[in-house]
């Protein structure tokens, strides 16, 4: 049984549906990458999983539980965590407070998890008292990921973690994502740097107009001439 299974999901923001039958399945050990043109419904897919918009048909199961239309305050304790594409840090709050907010649903001692995150991103420990709004784009992305990891998720949803970062930081963030995955967290991410991300993806999904166009392992998709021509820029 996959960790998460999205089956023929249809849904939208109230008007015409944006998703017209999306299928995604991820195992605990997987890194899944969703790619596709602008407006394909990639972000919308992640939001649908996270209960931020209405799923009108199809099913979403997490460890066998039906979670379609469940709200975040129920999903986070189940083991899902989400880093939105934009506005993904509390800018007026310190780095440390951002991390604490990620652990809001936990009632146990969070200091161990926080130390692990500081070990992964030493620069965050240095800046732990600084408001997150004062950090650089790359550091903010680390805060955002750190915040999401504080709930000790089984599945981490990331929406364009490399957006707006310089090539050096893109590589660094991808390395961190692989590290997190090796530590046992399943990843489902949306990426614009499609070729680079698919290279380390164990599951790849090409989305267009709210539905799957191609599904396979990352390397399979890169090797597929049709995917390469239409979606990876030749």
């Amino acid at each position, binding site marked *: 049984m996959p960790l998460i299974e999205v089956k023929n999901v249809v849904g939208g923001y109230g008007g015409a549906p944006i998703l017209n039958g999306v299928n995604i399945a991820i195992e605990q050990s997987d890194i899944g990458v969703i790619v596709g043109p602008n407006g394909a419904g990639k972000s919308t897919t992640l939001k649908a999983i*996270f209960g*931020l918009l209405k799923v009108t048909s199809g099913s979403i199961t997490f460890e066998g539980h039906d979670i379609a239309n469940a*709200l*975040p*305050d129920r*999903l*986070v*304790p189940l083991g899902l965590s*989400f880093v*939105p594409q934009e*506005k*993904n*840090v*509390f*800018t*007026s*709050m310190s780095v440390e*407070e951002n991390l*604490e*907010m*990620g652990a*809001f*649903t936990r009632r146990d001692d969070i200091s161990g998890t926080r130390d692990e995150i500081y070990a992964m991103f030493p620069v965050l420990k240095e800046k732990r008292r600084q408001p997150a709004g004062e950090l650089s784009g790359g550091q903010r992305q680390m805060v955002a990921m750190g*915040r999401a990891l504080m*709930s000790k998720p089984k599945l981490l949803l990331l929406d364009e973690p490399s957006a707006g970062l310089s090539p050096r930081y893109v590589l660094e963030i991808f390395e961190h994502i692989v590290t997190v995955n090796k530590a046992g967290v399943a990843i489902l991410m949306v990426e614009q740097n499609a070729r680079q991300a698919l290279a380390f993806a164990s599951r790849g999904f090409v989305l267009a107009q709210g539905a799957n166009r191609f599904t396979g392992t990352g390397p399979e998709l890169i090797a597929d001439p049709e995917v390469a021509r239409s979606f990876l820029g030749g």
Partner: protein
Amino acid sequence: MDVLVFFINKVLVAGTVLGSIYALGAIGATLIFGILRFAHFAHGDMMTMGAFFAFLIALVFYHYGIYLPVPMGFVVMPLAMLLTIAVALGIDKTVYAPLRRRGARPVTLLIASIGVTLMLQGLIRLFFGTGQYSFFDYGETKSIFRIDMSWAGARPITFTQPQVLMVIVTVVLVLILNFFLTGTRLGKAMRAMADNADLAQVSGINTQLVVRLTWVIAAALACAAGTMLSLDVSLKPDLAFNIILPIFAAAIVGGLGQVYGAIAGGFLLGFAETLGVFNWSTILRPLAGVLPDWIVIPPDLSLVPTEYKLTVSFVILVITLLWRPTGIFKGAST
């Protein structure tokens, strides 16, 4: 020296008192704006309602001949706060929550809160009429403190016991609030939601709980501010409706959503209004002896007449918005 004492009595004491009231009101208004994203127009009437609750409870004590060394209004304040909180939560549940569920825009919520204003004022008038009341008409006396300044050849500095208690209560409430917001999990969740409501929800923060907490805090502070205001002046149905505009000005000047900004804005406007109506001619009078004869100091040299005190707040509001549109503490833009 007499001049200095006069200044302390008229400006320092009066400004601190007014500033405390404005600050407590503005904190609540700014919190509600930060969490619920609308201007809570009925905030003044929540203050008045809190004051009437305190008055009613105090009347019960007076009825049984119970008098304490501190004004009853202060003693019964916690009970009055609980009643005010209950009403605020009730109003949210019946008026604002259904609108929020339908995705109402801020302007709709604002108009709903104007409706709540009319309703609260109507209810108060229904029970108490339109007259004025005083906590001190029932056998309790307002003690006046005098700091003897005769060693300096001046009249004493005077202030009342409620004024001293008011400052103490304000400081204590602000310290408690500060501890709550920076030192507790729920307080931080409240700041998180004011900062970025979507991300707070994504983090699994119970946003309904934060909304209720916001009303609890705003109503408690409003009750304290209203009760203390009525202890300083007198109690009437439009007690705090008259100061809702400077309270919002204070919240905006401080930066909407910013608690510390609201405190700063409250005291800034409290002092500015007091200075605005201060009669400067008293201060200049000692100069009369040294000034040439052709300069006559007029008897009234205040910047604005007392009836126009509120304009001071608006002048400051306009200047702030021109110079720094998001307020001193950089709040949410409206």
